[in-house]
């Protein structure tokens, strides 16, 4: 049975619906990432799981226990807040021990557990410091240790890395995964950053307008998006409208017939979109599909260059050219180029 089961969860803010009959099951020990843009309902879902928002309808079950109506302090669920929310007048050790003191754990045991957790987050030397004497990354780790200390059945993380700079974020991801595996706790992490979601999640739930647009492993979400919204959110810059042609082909508006591998047979004439990832397109001939166009603009991105290629039919393709072999043969804006790709690079979307 699922560790966390959410059924038909609905939250309204006046006339606006923040969560719309959302259902989701999360297994024990998962690192489940709730991904979504701002206003998608991801923070509302997290706060509802924490008990800070009462749902208008639906049920939340944790390890078989219905927790829907439990107030936050009675739930075996802990949260790390985006602002970290450390208690400013308490030392790091007192912050970490806060939840254990509420449980009435014996002093010596609290001290031992606090030591254990500070070691886990590598902050043993900071036990007596006040939160305002810590850096952002250190505060984030104190918040994590504090939330893990009472051994919650479920740990909620609200944008844990959003306040960290880029290098620290990368490092913190690995730390979080290490700690999660060590603790064996079920983590639900909220983020708006798809790279973070792909790198960390056992499964991703992509939220859009209070509903789950798709739930799946990072590879499933990335390679087999269920809809145009998911494809666009996961960075498929090319979404081309068209119709299904004879078996194995698609007629793209403004481009013409191309070869595409459809996972399920669709009746010819069906209106579809084809998602093409920029990194699956190549500059130069050689694939089963090729079109000619003109480079309109180029954006240097370090590991690659993104070209916007205009096609004669009015359509445009974004092509990511890898810079693995150096920058010698970069087409300049205005240059005529051929763009080619393999049939399996086409993802057919009916929604």
């Amino acid at each position, binding site marked *: 049975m699922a560790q966390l089961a959410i059924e038909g969860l609905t939250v309204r803010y006046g006339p606006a619906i923040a969560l719309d009959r959302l259902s989701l099951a999360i297994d024990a020990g998962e690192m489940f990432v709730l991904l979504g843009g701002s206003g998608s309902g991801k923070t509302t879902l997290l706060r509802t799981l924490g008990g800070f928002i009462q749902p208008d309808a639906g049920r939340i079950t944790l390890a078989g226990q219905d927790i829907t109506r439990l107030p936050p302090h*009675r739930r075996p669920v802990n949260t790390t807040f985006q602002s970290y929310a450390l208690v400013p007048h308490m030392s790091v050790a007192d912050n970490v021990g806060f939840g254990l003191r509420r449980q009435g754990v014996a002093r010596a045991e609290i001290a031992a557990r606090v030591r254990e957790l500070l070691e886990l987050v590598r902050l043993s030397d900071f036990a007596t410091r006040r939160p305002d004497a810590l850096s952002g990354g250190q505060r984030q780790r104190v918040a994590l240790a504090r939330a893990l200390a009472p051994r919650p059945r479920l740990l909620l993380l609200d944008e844990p890395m959003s306040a960290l700079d880029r290098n620290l974020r990368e490092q913190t991801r690995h730390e979080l995964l290490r700690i999660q595996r060590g603790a064996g706790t079920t983590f639900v992490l909220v983020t708006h950053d798809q790279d973070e979601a792909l790198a960390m999640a056992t499964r991703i739930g992509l939220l859009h307008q209070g509903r789950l647009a798709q739930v799946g492993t990072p590879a499933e979400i990335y390679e087999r998006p269920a809809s145009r919204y998911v494809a666009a959110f996961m960075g498929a810059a090319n979404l081309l409208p068209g119709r299904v042609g004879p078996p194995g082909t698609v007629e793209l508006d403004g481009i013409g017939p191309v070869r595409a591998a459809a996972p399920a047979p669709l009746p010819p004439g069906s209106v579809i979109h084809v998602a093409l990832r920029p990194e699956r397109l190549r500059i130069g001939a050689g694939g089963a599909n090729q079109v000619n166009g003109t480079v309109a603009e180029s954006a240097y991105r370090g590991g690659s260059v993104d070209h916007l290629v205009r096609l004669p039919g009015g359509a445009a393709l974004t092509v990511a050219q890898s810079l693995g072999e150096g920058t010698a043969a970069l087409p300049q804006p205005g240059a005529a180029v051929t763009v080619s790709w393999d049939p399996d690079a086409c993802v057919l979307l009916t929604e």
Partner: protein
Amino acid sequence: MNRLAVLAPLWAWLGLFVAAPVVIVAALSFSTSIPGIPPFTPLLVAPDPANYAVLTEDAFYLRAALRSLAVAGVSSAACLLIGYPMALAIARAPERRRPTLLLLVMLPFWTGFLLRVTAWIGLLRDEGWINAGLGLLGLAPLRLLYTDFAMYIGVTYAYLPFMILPLYARLSRRDPDVEDAAADLGASPLVVFLTVTLPLSVPGILAGLALVFIPAVGEYVIPELLGGPSAQTLGRALWNEFFANRDWPMAAALATALLAALAVPMALLRARG
């Protein structure tokens, strides 16, 4: 140079209207009362600490001082107990409602202070509204006016906004996430209040206590209008020396002693904060 030009009016104002009167009163406290105009010996000619000797020797002044401290202490505590929940409720109210609630707190200032204290006489006197209400319920009338109780009510009522405003200023800046985090870690609403909200509002509490306690110690009007005739506070003693006995130097000595007594806790408070 510019800085000096900007600050000059401020220093002039402080010097003329704050420092100079204090110096004059302090000097006056060392002169002696004589019949005539002005009713004291020339200032600074022969400084005589006799007035302070009287202050320490005559138990009347000590009793008045203790009485004043009691009035100010009880009233400050009452203001804190009443004002804290009000300040917290305003700080927790939806943002669009807060200006209205704050306006309601400050609204009494739009009426004259004396008028408001006099209104309490109408409420508290033997045939007043409260006793009329008790009569309707078939209860015997209570002696309310001219009692210590009336004095405490009056002082608490008059200074309550001075407690609420600094408390609100502090509480409105609290981080609701920290309270949520405490609740999330198993703290019931009462424990959240005791472990997070209350300790973090201590600076607001101290500011509010200072703003209520200090003027309440020297309060003259409320004990005079609402308190019993035996309720001799420092404010009333000072008034009597000045107006009834025309002993300006004695009144000045009382005022200076009061100022010094209040400056000490203020300095301590500042050193803390």
